[in-house]
């Protein structure tokens, strides 16, 4: 997926894979927090902007 996403103009940093067992709750929460922050820094995706533009055009 990391190789495919740039082909449609999406930063591959927006996807990550983690292997965790069901017993690793705290680590899961940590990853979610870190990844959410990462996406927040990256900002909205080009898809979001495209959908927004379409919505505005339709309105």
């Amino acid at each position, binding site marked *: 997926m990391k190789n*495919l996403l740039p*082909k*449609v*103009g*999406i930063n591959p940093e927006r996807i990550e894979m983690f292997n965790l067992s069901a017993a690793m709750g705290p680590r899961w929460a940590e990853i979610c927090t870190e990844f959410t922050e990462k996406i927040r820094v990256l900002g909205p995706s*080009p*898809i979001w902007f*495209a*959908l927004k*533009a*379409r919505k505005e055009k339709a309105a």
Partner: protein
Amino acid sequence: MIVGEQKPLEEIWEMIKIHKQVLVFGCNTCVAVCQQGGNKEAEVLASMLRMKATQEGVDIEITNSGIERQCEHEFFEKSEKEIQGSEAILSTACGIGVQFMAEKYAKPIYPGLNTTFLGAVEQFGVYTERCQACGNCVLGQTGGICPIARCAKRVMNGPCGGSTKGKCEISKDVDCAWQLIVDRLKLLGRMDDYETLTPIKDWSTDRAGGPRKLVREDLADE
């Protein structure tokens, strides 16, 4: 198996963007093994095309589906409805599947792959050519190594002068097929086969004789 490689996304997009609805249709046999055109890959490609369409601001509905083999009538039955209901099809089968669909359905059928060769899975993710379907197999005389598919010059009595240290002159990464043949015949104690001069090959069974057809009269309906 037949090996294929997905076409660049831009090329696919240029073909399909004129339509309002496109079905990305996978073929889950050969081209699924090389992970280019199976039903899973068709699903991923459909998703990519939807993202592309959204960004380009083009209103096009892209769905996906697939069957086990696009080169046999029987397998189409379960997908008949969705194929008939589609404006155009982007097939991720090899060239055989694409043509077979084009013959079956009176609607645009586009190729999602470039069909590359008949090959083997050397290791996960590595596919190499082994056969050119020449219609007149010589593997019995060449120790099981094909001089037609694997020798750049298709030399029948090799090696040629371009063979150096077991490699072909076209690339240091390509084995000389005739070196492989000699090594193999030595291993099998069959070097007498190597000494036998192979006559000029009859290419009429190859593509030179035009499109080929095989009819098993004992199996085919009248």
